[in-house]
């Protein structure tokens, strides 16, 4: 890793980030498009949840990770406080790994 590589990655990432807010400003978005944009963000984030829970690299992540996320998901669905949800995910996954479930 070189400083140049870091700067290129930083500039490119910032360009992606700035493009959205600036584009929004240029064009008047219809209610239809507004809704489509927020649905897109939800779809992307949910896909991120799925891949981060179930995959590691290009393979299966093992059982401990998805079970931890699932337990947290059920807790969130049953209206558990956010902090409890996050801690429950980490504790469940760490506990499963501790007892040998990968």
């Amino acid at each position: 890793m070189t400083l140049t590589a870091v700067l290129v990655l930083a500039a490119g990432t910032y360009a992606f980030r700035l493009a959205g807010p600036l584009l929004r400003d240029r064009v008047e978005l219809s209610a239809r498009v507004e809704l489509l944009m927020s649905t897109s963000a939800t779809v992307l984030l949910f896909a991120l949840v799925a891949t981060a829970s179930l995959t590691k690299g290009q393979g299966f992540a093992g059982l401990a990770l998805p079970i931890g996320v699932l337990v947290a998901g059920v807790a969130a669905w049953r209206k558990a406080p956010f902090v409890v949800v996050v801690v429950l995910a980490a504790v469940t996954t760490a506990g499963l790994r501790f007892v040998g479930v990968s």
Partner: protein
Amino acid sequence: MRSTWRTLDAGLLRDVAAVAAGAAVSGASFGAISTGAGLPWWLPVVMSVLVFAGGSQFMAVGVVAAGGSPAAAVLAGLLLNVRHLPFGLAVGDVLGKGLLPRLVGSHLLIDETTAFALAQSDPRKAKAAYWSCGVALFISWNVAVVAGALIGRTIGDPAAFGLDAAFPAALLALLLPALKDRATRHAALLGAAVALATTPFLPAGVPVLFALGGLLVTARQEVER
């Protein structure tokens, strides 16, 4: 801006603190892994301040550590960050008006700030959630990276603490209200299925973008608000 901070309530701050704590441990491990891979201590620090996107940072360092070229590392990192463009289109208006809030706020556009903003129904609360989450994560992430880079490999693997589960769990909890909407839920489930099915065959970052194909199920949906 001042009114934004006044909108903050204790519950929101507690939620933000939980995510920031998780980011701190990940940041410390990023610093430790980077110096462990032979980078000088300041390079992961500069990277964290300027790139501020954990996934792409881990990936870039990982590519180089595995013997890849810096160009390949940059390409992989950028591919992972393309999703920030649709994020900005979705929540771009919560950054605030004026050039400065937009220039600074754009740098804080990450998975967590997007999810926090989307989870609020009131625009003022969305703005408060976006900025408090962004500032808190920027500070906790970067301070932790410095600590990790200096202390080194003693921190070990964040997986042992189950922290790799905390990130998707937090996102999921924030997304649940939006998933109550039928059309959104169907699009998200189809999108996740596409992302999972394509993960073994595509470079990291691309499967998540392919998830946008899930939007096809909402194509005939009428606007309801």
